[in-house]
Structure formats: C-alpha cells, structure tokens
C-alpha cells in the first residue's frame, strides 16, 4: 500500500482554499499516524477480499481459462485480448448476447432505482410527522428488507406462476387484461424482475431517507411554516436540500446494486432465465460457470467494472460540480 508509506502533509502546506475550522486533525502528534491506524483494518480486509481477488480476476481475463486448464491454471495459455475481442464482437453470438443483456440491465437498473427512490421518499415523507400507528407502519414497510432475499424472491416466484399464482388470480378477479399472461417467461419477465427488485429495494431507500430525515432540525420547518411555506415548498426547500448528501450516496449505491444484481434473477428464474430477464451479472455467471469459460467470463466482468467506474466517475464529477455551484 502506497498510502502507508507517505509522510503526512505538514499543516503549513495545506492548500488554503478550504477554510477549515480548528479540529481534531490539528492536535499535534496525532495527525501523523492516527488516521492510518484507523483505516488500516478496513484496508487490510479490502485488500484480501476485494482487491487481490480482483487483480487475479483481471489476470484471468487475459488467459484461455477453459475447462481444459482450470485444474492447472499455470498451464493456461495466454489469450491476449482475445477474450475481450469475442465479448465485444457484436456480430458474433457471444458478443451479441452480452450486448442484449447489457441493454436489459440498463433498463432494469434505471427503472428500479427510480421507482425505489420515489417510493422510499414518498413513504419517508409520509411518515415524517408522528401519528398514531406510525411505528407499526414503519415496521411493516421494513419487512421486505428484513426477509432473507431468497425468501422474498421465492414468494414472488410463487405469486407470478401463470396458473397457480396470486398475481394472475388478482388480474382475473379484477377483469384486467385478456387471458392469463406469463410473468416469468417472454417479455413480461423484465416487468416481474423490476417489481421484485423494487419490492425489496424501496424499503432500503425508505430506511436510509428516514434516517436522513431525522437529522433535519424541526425548527427549520417551523420557521418555514411561519413564513407561510406550504408542505410541497417545505419539501423542496428544506427536505430535499438537507437530504442531498444522503441522496447522492443512495442513488449511486442503488444503481451499483441493481446493475450488478445477481440474486434477483438467479432466484426468480433459476436456470430458466428468459432473454428479457437476462441481467448482466447473471449472464456473466452463466458465461463462466455454465460454459466453463472463466477467462471469457472474467473479461466480461472487467468490461462491466470499467463501465460502472466510468458511470460512477461521471456521476461524482457532475454532482460534485453542482454542489460547488450551489
């Protein structure tokens, strides 16, 4: 780790741009090693569980790691950039499959994040003022999150069965639509996937936003009320700006989770995932484990990683710039 070897910056050379108040870091003798000691355990764990395996994964993407070589990795011949070439050749069956899966994932991720945030915000705001039974409702709303992921998704799978499922039963009772639609195959699979993922994720948005709301001082609202601001304006002028730091994290994290969501398609569709529900993480899993081509799967993962990093980078730059302007 290069971090640990650097000398701490002396206070005098600190850029003057940021006017900081005297704080803990100005205590003499501490600033040198304390922050490093504080982050060291986290760094160590990240190294072993994330960074090191990822480097191995990147190496894997450059070798021909098929079933002929997985028992003896050192004998696997270099593949150069061939794994990447195959993955990105969209005229070829493998590349075409990856591209389609990518498209499905983009739609899934955007819609799920948007829905989860809207529902989470709606509920958090609705529960902001105390009322009788608030604790019960709050608990109820958290239940989807408290359920083991597998249990929740399986229940949905059970409900989305064509002949015996609750969803089609409700639709028939309400005389909606014609016949019994399929939910787990065909193009409806994407709708199912979004519904199930949102069912679970919105409560996380709710939880996070609710925690964020509690840190907004009440007198802000009181002052605004005195000034005659309505609820909507209070939400826009007080709630939204106050939640900004929480939102920045929340939206990005929801995006990253949904984009590499594996559990939902894996449990919802099992081995029978339809093209419309072929999320990219599951696609890569199949490309690796089903066809035993771990080099190719690793190359696809690296491409996914690069994409996520670019999107995140842009997101951070854009939101960072906005913060500075505001």
């Amino acid at each position, binding site marked *: 780790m290069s971090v640990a070897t650097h000398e701490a910056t002396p206070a005098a050379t600190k850029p003057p741009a940021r006017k900081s108040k005297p704080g803990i870091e100005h205590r003499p003798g501490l600033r040198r090693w304390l922050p490093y000691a504080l982050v060291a355990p986290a760094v160590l764990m990240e190294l*072993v569980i994330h960074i090191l395996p990822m480097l191995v994964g990147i190496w894997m993407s450059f070798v021909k790691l*098929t079933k*002929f070589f*997985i*028992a003896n990795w050192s004998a696997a011949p270099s593949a150069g950039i061939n794994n990447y070439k195959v993955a990105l050749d969209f005229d070829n069956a493998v590349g075409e*499959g990856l591209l389609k899966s990518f498209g499905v994932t983009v739609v899934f991720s955007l819609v799920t994040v948007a829905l989860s945030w809207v529902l989470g915000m709606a509920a958090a705001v609705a529960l902001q003022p105390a009322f009788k039974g608030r604790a019960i409702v709050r608990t109820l709303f958290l239940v989807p999150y408290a359920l083991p992921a597998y249990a929740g998704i399986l229940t949905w799978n059970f409900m989305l069965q*064509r002949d015996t499922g609750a969803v089609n039963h409700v639709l028939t009772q309400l005389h909606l639509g014609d016949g019994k639609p399929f939910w787990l195959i*065909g193009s409806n699979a994407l709708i199912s996937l979004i519904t199930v993922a949102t069912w679970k994720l919105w409560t996380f948005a709710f939880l996070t936003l609710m925690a964020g709301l509690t840190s907004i001082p009440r007198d802000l609202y009181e002052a605004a009320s005195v000034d005659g601001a309505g609820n909507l304006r209070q939400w826009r002028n007080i709630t939204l700006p106050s939640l900004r730091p929480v939102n920045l994290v929340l939206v990005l994290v929801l995006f990253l989770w949904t984009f590499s969501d594996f559990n939902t398609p894996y449990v919802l569709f099992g*081995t029978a995932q*339809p093209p419309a529900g072929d999320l990219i993480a599951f696609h890569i899993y199949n490309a690796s484990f089903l066809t035993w081509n771990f080099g190719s799967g690793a190359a696809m993962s690296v491409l996914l990683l690069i994409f996520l990093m670019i999107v995140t980078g842009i997101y951070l730059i854009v939101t960072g710039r906005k913060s500075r302007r505001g």
Partner: protein
Amino acid sequence: MRLRSFVAAVAATALGVSLAACGGSDSGSDGGTGGDQTLTYWASNQGTSLDNDKQVLTPVLEQFTKDTGIKVNLEVIGWNDLQTRIQTAITSGQAPDVVNIGNTWAASLQATGAFLPFDNDALTAIGGKDKFVPTALATGGKAGEDITSVPLYGLAYGLYYNKAMFAAAKVEPPKTWEEMVTAAQKLTNPAKNQWGMALAAGSYTENVHFAFINGAQNKSEWFGADGKPTFTSDGNVQGVLRYLDLMQKDKVANPSNAQYDNGTKSVNDFATKKVAMVINQNNADSSIVANGMKAGEYGVVPFPAPAGGEQVASHVAGINLSVFKNTKHKDAALKFVKYMTDATTQTTLGKPFSSLPVLKDAKPVFTTDAAEAAIFSDIYNTKSKPLPLVPAEDQFESTVGKAMNGLFAKIATGGTVSADEVKAALQTAQDQVAASS
C-alpha cells in the same frame, strides 16, 4: 491463537506470497497407506430430500466402514449447487475423494484432467469393466480414452400414461409418435384444463434431452466425428420442431408448461391427474406415488419414434461416480467405488433412489410392477443412446437447451416458430459453442 494466525495468513497473502501455488498443486499420490483413512464423498440428490438421501446412504456407508475400516465423510449436495461445487473443487484442488456426477457431464469433466482415469488396474480394482451394462459404461468418458467415471445409478426416459384416462377415451398406449399425438389430442380439453401431455418446457436440461432424442430418432448427430457441432442439420431441426409442435401445432400441452423449469412440475401434473401423459425418467415413480397416484394407476411405454424413425427412446441417463485424481486415498477410493457398484449395494439403493441397475444381469428393484421394470430395463439396455461424448457436451446442453426454452416461450406467449427459426436458434447455439471452445 486462532485470530493471530488468521491475521498472519491474511497479511502474507496480501503480500502475494501464496498465489504462485495456484492450481491443484499438492496431488499427493501416496495412495492407501492403510491405518485410519477417511474418504470424503459428495453425493447428489437422488431421494425425496437431501436429508432423505443422507438417511438412505448412512447405513450403506456404515456397512462399508465395517467391511474395510475406511470411514466415509458424506455430504449430499443439491443439483443446484453440484456443478458449481465440482468446478470450484477442480479449480482449487480442494476436492473430495469421490463424487457423484450427472453422467452427461462425464466427457466435459474428463477434459479438465482433474479426475482419475480408470485404467485397466483401476477397473480391475473395482471389479472389472465386464460387470457393467456396456452402454452405461460408455457414458464414462470420451470413446478411445480411459473413462474417468463409472456408472452408479441408471435412469431412462419412459412415457408414463394414466390407465383410467386412456380407458375412458378408448385409446391404446402409443407405439409411434403419431399414435402418441392422436391419443394426446383425444385426451386434451383446454376448456376443462385437461391436457394430453405435460412437458418440462422451461427446463433447459430436459429440453436438450428431447432435442437429442428427437434428433436421434431422425438419425441425426449433434456433433460430427471431428468433435465439431452439427446442430443445424435437417434431422436436428425437424426433431426439435416436432417436439415444439406438441405445444404449437398439436396443442396437446398447456402453454403454461413453458415455465416448468424442472421435471418435477410436469410429473406433479401427471400425478394429480391434470394430464394423461408425461415423459420422464424412471425416478419419477417416487414422485408420482408421493403425489397421490397409486402404483397400478399408470403404465409405461417407450417414448415412441415417428413411423420409420430410429427407435431411440431415451438417452443413457443416470449418475456416475468419479474419483478425483489428487486424492490421497486412491486405493480406498477405488474400494469405495467397487462397493458402491457391487450387486448388493445396487439392490439396496435401487429402490429408495428409483434407479435402474448399471450391472449386467441385475434385476431392477425400483418398482414392484414387473411389466414396468421390464420396459425400463429394455429401454435402458437396448433403446438408449448416450449423449454426445465430447468435451463440449456441457455447452451443448446449455446452449441448445436454452434455445429451446426461448422457442417454447415464444410459442406459449402466442408467437409461432417455423423450421427456419429453429434453425436460426440452433445456429446461434452452435456459434456460442464454437466461440468458446
């Protein structure tokens, strides 16, 4: 202290000490030094639950320990996890000594080089290759090489039919494909939610078996002699289409079947008398009975070929037993394989696991119905063809099977599938296999 040694381990790994030792490096071949030996055995799920498997196998393994002094550490692994577990075991070298595999994976797993080839000595050690049914033994690996797995439980497809429904509709058990379709049509009444057949049309593993069998009935191969895929041959396309047409053209299967992602669901429909026929392997017996149908209420005939077609009614299905090459207890492992494949054990396990014996001259014990036993024995011994014994077999299963899932889904959601579309889908599957081999 545990924590300290753990931290030391983490630190050293972080410094990159140990990665050089990748792969199955410590292949100790000190085979069978006697003394206190413990084998690790991964069994697949054959019974009604993992726990049931454990209950069935435990006394059998205890007997083995009593006979030989070798202890067996059993873990039963569900089918959802088995392939991944085997893959990671191969990759890391941290493997059990003996493992059950789906026999269709045999050639693919053989290609990894992680399994012990049964050369002449090894075959002699397990009781000689002559004790096995030849077609069953042929599933053990690529032709012309030492096999890396031996048959353990035999299975075969059969066409189960509901006797009462057939009698009521005055139809005979079918002998040809055409008769099967006619009978199924008579027994289909969508208004009453009554269907002639149930298909596991959302299960890629089931679908690929029928792609193979229907292709084989058309005298068509899925891989050429050079090991290259020949998915798009006319016989294969027509065979796949014939099977799809059960739902599309003949309309004898409920479109809902398109989301039946395992054989269990179609068997349940049969057992609960929603459908008159189901094509399943003989281990369906226990499910059928468990779901309320009595043994005498159903009959079995071979899954029929069209008139003039090749009489292939099944692939040689079943479970094989493999030994990991880097086992430290080779002799003990071979003793165990011998024990599991001897006549007594086969008889003991044949009933609870509904399996056919893989031994010559052994009598099937999975059913008390003599006619059913005879039919399945006949299918297994004379009307079965092994799935392609090529390293790319696993890719054949996933690509062709998933292509068929897609085609069924299209039919079920109201679309139509022509021969050209079947061919295009098989072409994509073939390209995928080609791209990753």
